[in-house]
């Protein structure tokens, strides 16, 4: 029973109910950080950490949180974890913290975290909620990484700051700017949705 639930949480968050391409959540950060792979990875780690722990905390307290102030409490919990991420980055990974600048603070406003707390953690036990947080984080991360790899490769000719394409490649500046993210994200959603519709058709037959 438990194993079945865990499996469903992961398959849901990574596929059918993916936060980015199915629920279209967290688009702001998807557009903002995906032009360089390195920043994307740190953003994803920060998000996985925050979603997992805020889900765990909200779920552990769900019996006690008064319903009418539950959103305030959730925001407070999320903000506390994000501040912790920010402080830890500043202290132990100062270079990455300098590069990310204001993006770390913006994790607070990522709708995925609030969405999972509201939709999952409030009605499920702590451990399952923790796993759901991790699964949602991964669901968000792999989509972002695919977009980031395409954008950095086409926009700067490099991956993780290392030149991959030779001098013959002309950088597409638009890929580094926000419009590039819209194009890549839209194409990604189009392909994934197209594949899913095909699958569903096959199942019906």
């Amino acid at each position, binding site marked *: 029973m438990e194993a079945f639930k865990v499996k469903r949480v992961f398959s849901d968050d990574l596929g059918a109910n993916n936060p980015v391409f199915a629920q279209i959540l967290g688009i702001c950060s998807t557009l903002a*950080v995906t*032009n360089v792979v390195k920043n994307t990875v740190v953003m994803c780690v920060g998000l996985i950490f925050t979603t997992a722990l805020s889900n765990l905390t909200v779920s552990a307290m769900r019996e006690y949180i008064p319903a009418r102030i539950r959103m*305030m409490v959730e925001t407070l919990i999320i903000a506390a974890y994000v501040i912790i991420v920010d*402080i830890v980055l500043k*202290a132990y990974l100062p270079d990455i913290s300098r590069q990310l600048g204001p993006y770390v603070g913006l994790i607070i406003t990522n709708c995925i975290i609030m969405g999972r707390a509201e939709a999952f953690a409030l009605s499920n036990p702590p451990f399952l909620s923790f796993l759901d947080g991790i699964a949602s984080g991964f669901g968000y991360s792999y989509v972002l990484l695919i977009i980031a790899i395409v954008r950095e490769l086409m*926009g700067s000719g490099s991956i993780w700051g290392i030149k991959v394409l030779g001098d013959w490649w002309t950088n597409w*500046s638009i890929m*580094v700017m926000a419009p590039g993210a819209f194009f890549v994200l839209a194409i990604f959603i189009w392909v994934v949705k197209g594949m899913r519709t095909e699958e569903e058709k096959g199942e019906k037959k």
Partner: protein
Amino acid sequence: MSEKTFFQKRVFPIIFMLVITLVFISVTTVIYTFTQDIIKINESLVLKRAILKAAGFEVLQAAADVEKLYKDAVSEVKDQNDRTLYYIITKPGLLDVQGYVIVSTGSGLWGDITAAIGINSAKDQLTGIDIIAQNETPGLGGRITEPWFTNQFKGKGGPLSLVPEGETANSNEVQAITGASYSSAAMKAIVNSTLQDAQRIIKS
């Protein structure tokens, strides 16, 4: 289902919120207190590295090396309000002035750019520059921190002008970054105004 009392409906949520706020503030305060020294050291290290790089020294990785070279080669000049005006660079062990470094701030595309700008003792050439803080678009204007961009200021004399990326630059020209015209122009403006101010600020 039983009717909720006044306490449960109105008072409890307020107490709950107060208590939970206190708990989380305490947790973050504790973490902050334990890490603030490391954060301060990191920040001063960033500044020291930038000053040394602007002065034309090799970039050192180890924190201890940076501290040692900084102690040997850099002295700070402050105004009456204890604000640092500029840094005097000497060769380690010698007293001759090799040059000066001024930390100056100008506006970039999204926010301020702070840079350390090194000037030779004759105050007519740059010994190097390094970016201390910036909020430019990552991948575009953010490239002002890349070594190929900052290194090209070395040995140049002002007032500087920009040429397109990839073109040969003369002794008073630097290459701009493609796709980041504004950030490149901002850097040019910061360096030029610092070169101009240097004559006034630095008293030899």
